[in-house]
């Protein structure tokens, strides 16, 4: 399955909805989109991964790169993910301590700072 990316504004936040598979072949498109959003001055981003079918370390690396880029502008990047198979790789790599991760987009929009 190919990668799908859709973004929209929701209040102060930009919601980037990611779907499909994020691996070494598709991750550059996600990296490019995050760079574009930050370049456009969007420093409060929620990456909604509810429709992600697969994510490996290349995808994690892109999210870490996005977080570094946003933090350099004193912004925030939060994730929405409720799939155990994906949460597991965040736990193994210790990245649950780095990213705020929410079960639903509503929770992220209410709680993320």
């Amino acid at each position, binding site marked *: 399955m190919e990668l799908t990316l859709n973004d929209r504004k929701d209040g102060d936040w930009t919601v980037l909805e990611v779907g499909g598979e994020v691996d070494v072949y598709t991750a550059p498109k996600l990296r490019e989109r995050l760079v574009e959003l930050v370049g456009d001055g969007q420093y409060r981003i929620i990456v909604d991964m509810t429709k992600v079918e*697969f994510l490996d370390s*290349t995808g994690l690396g892109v999210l870490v790169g996005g977080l570094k880029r946003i933090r350099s502008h004193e912004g925030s990047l939060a994730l929405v993910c409720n799939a155990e198979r994906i949460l*597991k790789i965040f736990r193994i790599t210790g990245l649950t301590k780095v990213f705020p991760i929410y079960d639903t987009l509503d929770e992220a929009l209410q709680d993320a700072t």
Partner: protein
Amino acid sequence: MSLVELHLPPDTQFVSLARLVVVTAARRSGMDEERLEDLRIAVSEATTNAILSHQRTEEAQRVVLSFGTRPTDEVFQVTIADAGPGFEPLPADDLVERDWQMEGGLGITLIRNLTDDVEFVRGEGMQVHLRFGVSLSSNGAS
């Protein structure tokens, strides 16, 4: 053990094909769904490393995946072999000291944690052996 081989050109578009083929074979071997997800990620990581190694060194040879079940000890094994210069994997306990801002090295951490056993062999190329236990008796697979 009857091994199946998959020969991939050094192009990242084929990593998803490697995942699909190996996971399908493991499912037929009786691996349960949770372990299939672990296998899917481990194969993706090792195949990505191999293909990128060939790309960096402009190595035109194919990356070779060999996989199958060893009935004697109920292990599903995948070997990912490349002809690149190889690498020395980070030690298993490196995660504790890890700086989250490092974007590399996450793949080896995932492989170590998601497999039952892994072996990195650096010779003329690099061979990574991924091993997963399967229960042949519970599903009638052979």
